[in-house]
């Protein structure tokens, strides 16, 4: 596969939803159902991206990905903990686990 060509295609399909609002906002009115559908996409997209993919962080030991996910979920429940800290803490937790197994 040509990765540069892939990047160009990915840029184009990413650019479409990014540029359209600026030009269409005054002309197109989405119905409430279409709006709700688009609003829900981030949740369902992230759900599909997280599971079961997270289990393949280490394909031979799926519990490692599961453990990392649980750590991230628990930390995310605290309002005061920023995203960056959740990411770094989850990575460091797995580094620690790899050091002891």
């Amino acid at each position, binding site marked *: 596969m040509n990765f540069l060509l892939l990047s160009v295609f990915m840029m184009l399909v990413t650019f479409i939803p990014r540029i359209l609002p600026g030009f269409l906002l005054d002309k197109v009115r989405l119905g*409430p159902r279409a709006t709700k559908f688009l609003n829900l996409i981030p949740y369902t997209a992230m759900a599909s991206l997280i599971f079961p993919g997270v289990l393949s962080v280490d394909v031979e030991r799926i519990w490692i990905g599961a453990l990392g996910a649980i750590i991230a979920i628990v930390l995310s429940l605290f309002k005061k903990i920023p995203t960056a800290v959740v990411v770094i803490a989850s990575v460091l937790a797995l580094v620690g686990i790899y050091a002891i197994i």
Partner: protein
Amino acid sequence: MKKSTAYLNGVRVALPVILGYLPVAIAFAVMASEAGFSRLEIIAMSTLVFAGASQIMAVGMIATGASMLSVVVATFVLNLRHFIMGSYIMKRLGKTSTIEKLTTANGITDEAFAIIGTTEDEKCSVPYLFGIITVTYGSWVVGTALGAFVSMLIPASLSDALGIALYALFISLLVPKIKRSAHLITLVIFTALLNAVLGLIIPSSWAIIASCLIGALVGVFFVPDEDDASKETEVAK
């Protein structure tokens, strides 16, 4: 407000994003290099696409043998959310010129959206958004380059552990938004399980797209309107 002041305000407010982007950018570069990308290809993808989640998804899909078409379609579906975010940002900015629309479009990300969403009206302006984009885009490209050049210096234990970075990022974006709604939590679990089941019958790259679209469709009827936490991003007013 002077344009330069607004720009610097945008730069300042976006600085914490660097901490979130760097580990993810490095993780992306390491994964891409393991999937067979050259340094040039890794940096080119971050420079052109500037959409972290879909870039990591892309290299993950390629590593499992996905076709270019499925990667491009998955990228499109995943980034459809920028339509909502872009609409909201454009509405907050008010009138913008064609040049301004074209130059800010590729900087519309989850993070820029989150920052604009928590900014008072008098601060919102095109230079302010440019300030945010300078930091977010800059740290994404620089972080990727850093990752591309140090990927072989990174010890195996750290590069294995970095595999969790994007998942942790997704989780930390997702959990706070759904934790107050039993319906959204149920929808997310339903979609995840649907994805796992579909993944047994069709290639996982297509399962992601199908479960994401079916999940959102089910959600339109299942989730009460008031639970839709992203309501403030609504386009139709």
